[in-house]
Structures are given as C-alpha cells and as structure tokens.
C-alpha cells in the first residue's frame, strides 16, 4: 500500500511536470513528424522498399525513434534533478529503490505513449497506413515494451552520469548508433555481414522488426525471438536502473 502510493506520487509529479513543460511536449511531437515528412518524402521520391512506399516503410522506424529519443532524454533528465537537491528529497524518503524506478518508468511512459498515439494517427490519416483496432492495440503493446527497456536504460545513464555535459557522449555513442543500426531507415535483408552483426547486437532493432511486422507486415525474425529479446532487455535494464538508484542513494 505504502509503496504503491509512493509510485503514484512519483508518477503524479512526472505527469504534472510534463504537462507544465510545454516546450518538451511540442518538440518531442514535432521531430518525428519532421523525419517522417521531410526525410521520408525526400528519400521516398526515389526509393521504395519491401513493396511499400518509403514513407510507409520508415513509419515503424520513426515510431521507434520517437520512443528511443524520448525515453533516453526522459531518463537522463534526472541529472537536472540531481544538480539540485530535488532528487535527494525523494532518495531520502522511506521508500524502496524499485518503487522509485517504477514511478519514474510510469512517468516516462506517460511521456512516450501519447507521442506514439499521435504519430499513429498521423500515419493513418496522412500516409494511408491501414490498421485495425486490434493492430493498434498490438502496436501499443510493443511500444510499451520497447519504452520500458529504454527508459530504464536512460535512468541508468542519468543516475551514473555526474554532469549534463556527458550527454553529448550519450548522443554520439549510444543514441545515434542504436537508431541508425536498428534498421529503422533501411531494410536489413541484404546488409554486409559486419553491419548485419551490429544490427543483431542492437536491442532496438528487435523493436523495429516487431513494429514493422505489426504495421507493414514484414518481419525478419520470428515473433518469439523479438519478444524474448525485448522482454529480457527490459528486465535487465530495470534491474540495472534499480541498482543505480540504490547506489545513488548511498553516494549522493
């Protein structure tokens, strides 16, 4: 009971802050749409993959990108809380580390999931993507799973980084590679072996594959493999985030 209330408290805080920081909401909505329409239309005028036009092809990838960037941004945002003593006030409260992480993850999902919904609506209305009610729920479920793992990854990074300056390193060495090697922008069937291997190492690629299967009907891996990787990734990251929060409790 007490821990549930604590999780609720942390989520409520995140939710209220999210609603009040409109700059964050607006920019996180606009950038995937920019990719979809600027990049998608530009490149799409000369190529098409997997029997669908390029805009439709990258649509699942753009959803993944949106989840990826928002989740990692959200997670690493705790550096700002850390700079003030705000996070300390939560860390010193008599609640467990896992409740803190759970509350934070729920807060992150509140950030990510409305974006997924908006991008989906844009895709259906503007790109002519056809999805049944059931497929929409399916896409939502997959997105949720991808987001949990990535938010926990972001929280882990945020908890272990000492200053916001390290964030550009995260961008260069983590965010962009995770995105570019995920097969979000190109099909992964005919890649040179080294690139195929890198793609197999990228957990985000399994999310992209799942979403491509759900939205445009092209999936390279068996569903159980994609699902297993995503679930394991989410669990592993949740554990890492919890440990990192615990360590932060003892060192800040």
């Amino acid at each position: 009971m007490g821990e549930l209330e604590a999780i609720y408290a942390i989520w409520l805080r995140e939710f209220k802050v999210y609603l009040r920081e409109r700059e964050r909401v607006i920019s996180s909505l606009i950038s995937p749409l920019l990719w979809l329409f600027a990049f998608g239309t530009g490149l799409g005028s000369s190529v098409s993959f997997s029997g669908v036009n390029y805009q439709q092809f990258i649509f699942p990838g753009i959803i993944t990108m949106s989840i990826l960037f928002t989740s990692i941004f959200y997670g690493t945002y705790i550096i700002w809380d850390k700079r003030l003593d705000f996070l300390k006030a939560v860390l010193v409260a008599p609640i467990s580390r896992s409740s803190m992480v759970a509350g934070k993850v729920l807060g992150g999902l509140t950030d990510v999931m409305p974006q997924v919904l908006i991008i989906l609506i844009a895709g259906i209305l503007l790109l002519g993507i056809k999805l049944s009610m059931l497929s929409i729920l399916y896409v939502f479920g997959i997105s949720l799973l991808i987001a949990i793992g990535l938010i926990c990854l972001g929280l882990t990074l945020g908890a272990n980084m000492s200053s916001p300056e390290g964030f550009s390193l995260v961008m260069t060495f983590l965010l962009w590679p995770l995105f570019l090697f995920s097969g979000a922008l190109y099909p992964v069937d005919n890649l040179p072996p080294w690139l195929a291997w890198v793609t197999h190492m990228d957990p985000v690629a399994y999310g992209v594959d799942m979403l491509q299967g759900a939205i445009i009907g092209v999936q390279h891996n068996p569903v159980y493999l994609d699902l297993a990787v995503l679930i394991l990734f989410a669990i592993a990251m949740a554990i890492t985030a919890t440990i990192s929060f615990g360590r932060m409790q003892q060192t800040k």
Partner: protein
Amino acid sequence: MASADSVIITNQLTRKFGELTAVNGLNLEIKKGEIFGLLGPNGAGKTTTISMLTGMLRPTSGSASVHGFDVLHETPKVRKSIGIVFQEPSVDDLLTGRENLQMHALLYGIPASERKSAIDKMLKLVELEERADSLVRTYSGGMRRRLEIARGIMHRPKVLFLDEPTLGLDPQSRQHIWDHIKQLRDETGLTIVLTTHYMDEADLLCDRIMIVDKGKQIALGTPEQLKQNVGHDLVTLKIKNPNLPALQKLGFISGLKQRDGTVTMSVTDIAKNMQKLLNAAGEIESVEVHRVTLNDVFLHYAGHGLEDEHGEGGYFEREMQSQSNRK
C-alpha cells in the same frame, strides 16, 4: 556512554573520499529536544556528517544511530524517523507548494484521511496559505525555505536536520526562519540538528554547538560555555591621561595596548571587574566593550589549534585576523 534521552549517538564516525578525510572520528551525542549545531567553515564535513546520519552516505568506519536505529543496517527506519531540509533548494519548482506537500505525504505514507488537514496545518504554520496554489517557481528564497521546513516536519519526524537553513537568504528572511525554528522546538519538542557557518545563527538558535574543522571536533558546549572558555572581553577605553602602570597591576587584564589616547585590553569577567578597571584607568572619555562572540571562539580554536587552548593575549591577533578575514 549514552544516556537514555540521546536521540543521536555516533561512535568514531568517519568518512573518507579517496585521500581526503571529510569526517574524522566524530563522537556525537545529541539529546532529545535540543537544538544542536554543527558549526564550521565550508568543507568542514558538516554536510557529510548529515548525509551519513540520514542514511544517504555510508560511513567509511565508525557507527551512528538515530532514534535508536542504526544508520547502516536499519536505514528505512531511520528515514521514517527523520525530516531533512537540504542545503540546495529541493522543492520542485514546477509544482505548487501544496502539490509538493501532497507528494511528500504520499512518499511518507501519511494516511489519506489525515493528508489534507496535515497539509493545511503545515501551510498555516509556515504562513504560506495564501501562496499555496502558486508554482514554487514564483516563490522567494525565504518562502521556498519555509516550504521545505514544512515538508521536513509534516510526517512528524523525531529529528529534523537543517543543512545551512538560511544560506543565501536576506536578513529579514533569516530572522523569519529563525523564529520558525525556535517556535517549532518550543511547541513540539522536536530534536533539531543544524549545520551552519554563520556564527550568529549558531549563537542565536543552538542549545549546544559542536565546532568542527577539517572533519574533527574542536570544541563542544553551550554557546555561553564556549565563549567563557575563550574568556576575555575586549575593552577599549579613551583616556585623557592613561595610567598604564595602574592598569597593568590589575590581575584580570591582559594584552594591554596603547595607541594615541586609546587603550585596548582583554578583560576576564567584565561584569565584576568593570568598576575596578574604571577606577584605575584615569579620566575616561569613552568606554567600548566588545563581548566575546562565537566568531572569536571559532578563531580561537581553529586558528590556534587545541593544544594552546588557553593561549592568552591572543585575542588581539584574533581580532586582527577576523578583520582581515572579513574582507
């Protein structure tokens, strides 16, 4: 060693950061209901001590207990028993004052039936009722601090930690915070541990003070005791024809110095000896008495070390030193 009414006991509490020993073998014993001050310059190890007492930082060695719970092994129980106001602002400025308190009530498991009345009571106590529903972003520094104090005591802790409670506040806000702290102790019997590097704050608020420097205790006592240990008040006399030999004969005077028509000396037990002093001095134009302050106490201990604790005549050097320090 520990008496029954001790709320905080530490035994050789030590914390090292690599080569640096931030806290070096502190033995604290803080009684129920007292306002206890840790006084020392920045970097003396005050915040590190608080962090260990609140279970935020593991001691390198030694032990500590708060309200009977070991900080290392019973951290959750320690956390339930304490409230804390951090040095840096720690209220969420994108939430309103009321929302901050609501979040705190949930985190500390205050039952739903009591939440609203507890929040209202706290807002009233720190006089923030009218601004309760504005974003904290719009609060002044003093208001934020008051909100943090309200948050710190809302779950009725046994001990309240205040880490530099008036740092960066204007004089009026400081006075306001001091009033609140005193009122709190008087009305609730709460034990309050505060760190400060302001001498006046420690003097005004604390029942007992531990002076710390470089992680070590260098003096402990009530403000009066500490000042008495240093002992000498500084007296400046303007005299027309100073009778120095007569003054020098007085046993309670030391460190006599004359410059033009002004004579300065340090005097023990000024209240008792003033009359004798004036009789001996000659024709007096003006008298100025500078009582010993904690500032003098601190310089006495930190500046000269513990070994020459009763070094006499050092008062003037200290006075000079404090003047140059003030720049």
